[in-house]
């Protein structure tokens, strides 16, 4: 049946709806997404009221505060882990211990000393032993009221009476020719690479059983019959930030202040 313009009836309608379908096809996803978001926002306004903007501002502030608090707690948790490790050392000792922070080092890493933030006011005295979670660090050589100076094992002035495990070879540990070495090892005792080196009970200054490092090689020491061994220290002196100091007093075993 022809229409007024001579076109078949429904032709205009057909093109109109075809165009609408094409538009829907092209803009459909955007329309649905946009309309959906708009409807959801209006619905939220309707149900939750008009305070949503203020609430979101408050929530944003709270998120920032919680993030800061979270970062602080993370840092404290890391410190707690570290102190727990340090405490683990003191459980084997009957001596009172305090934790200390390394403030700075003097005269280079090898021959220099380390200064920590604990002094005689905290009970630290000369010849107090300094430890890290990984092992022995050194010995206190001088003491102020609030700070102490520690001579590390890597200093040539330090001598430590030590023994190897499990071979049981004994000797004197000292820093020589750029590395830690155990001198005067009895050749009849079978010290070999991989042995652990710990403090011996004959030293007097150091309590026995503190880990020093690992034997990497055993050498004949020149003209004498005794052997010597090169040792890798267990402690990474470069990254040392916190230490524990064993006090001479024997009260309050394993307590950390």
């Amino acid at each position: 049946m022809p229409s007024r313009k001579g076109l078949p009836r429904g032709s205009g309608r057909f093109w109109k709806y075809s165009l609408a379908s094409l538009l829907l096809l092209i803009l459909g996803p955007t329309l649905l997404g946009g309309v959906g978001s708009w409807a959801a926002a209006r619905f939220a306004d309707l149900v939750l009221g008009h305070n949503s903007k203020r609430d979101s501002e408050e929530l944003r502030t709270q998120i920032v505060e919680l993030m800061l608090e979270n970062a602080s707690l993370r840092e404290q948790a890391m410190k707690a882990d570290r102190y727990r490790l340090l405490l683990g050392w003191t459980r084997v000792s009957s001596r009172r211990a305090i934790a200390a922070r390394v403030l700075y080092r003097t005269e280079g890493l090898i021959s220099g000393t380390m200064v920590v933030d604990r002094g005689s006011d905290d009970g630290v005295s000369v010849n107090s032993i300094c430890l890290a979670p990984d092992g022995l660090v050194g010995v206190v050589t001088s003491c102020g009221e609030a700070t102490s100076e520690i001579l590390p094992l890597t200093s040539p002035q330090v001598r430590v009476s030590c023994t190897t495990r499990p071979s049981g070879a004994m000797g004197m540990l000292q820093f020589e020719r750029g590395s830690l070495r155990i001198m005067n090892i009895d050749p009849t005792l079978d010290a070999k690479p991989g042995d652990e080196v710990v403090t011996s009970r004959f030293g007097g200054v150091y309590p026995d059983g503190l880990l020093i490092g690992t034997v990497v090689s055993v050498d004949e020491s020149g003209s004498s019959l005794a052997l010597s061994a090169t040792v890798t220290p267990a402690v990474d002196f470069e990254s040392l930030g916190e230490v524990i100091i064993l006090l001479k007093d024997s009260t309050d075993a394993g307590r950390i202040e």
Partner: protein
Amino acid sequence: MPAVSNRPGITGTLLVIGAVTVQLLLEVTLGRVFRAPNVLALVLTYLSINYGNVWSIDSAFWAGVTLDLLLHQPLGASSLGLLAGLQASRLLIAAAPGGNRMTKVLSGAFAGLVYDVVFLLAASRPFLHGLGSHVLPVAARLLMTLVAGILFISVATALSSLRVRGRNEAV
């Protein structure tokens, strides 16, 4: 057969709603990619023949949009396909004036075929790149639509003859 421009009223509306529902159920249960006969195209062709283009074009658009929304298909693809199919079937009927019942079924199936091809092109991504291996199920769907159309016409004829016989007996 010339199109009659009368309004189908509530019967036509119910017929379209029923066809959309049946099509939806068939597509959901038998598989959405051309596994079900195109009942909607048959019904819309029937409406076009009996009630004119205006009403059937409106129905095709809205039924297509509804089907797309319900089946999560690209919005507008079904309505575009149905409109194209309807237009194609109208051209076929115009080319074969005075056609019998089989012509109606064939025009319905042809509308379904055009719908499927247009739908494939419109719903494909990238746009207009849908003609490939997806065309193969279209032939099977065409056959199913033909069978459904013949069944529909047979049942309608049987019911019509029963009604006429009952009326004659009453007279």
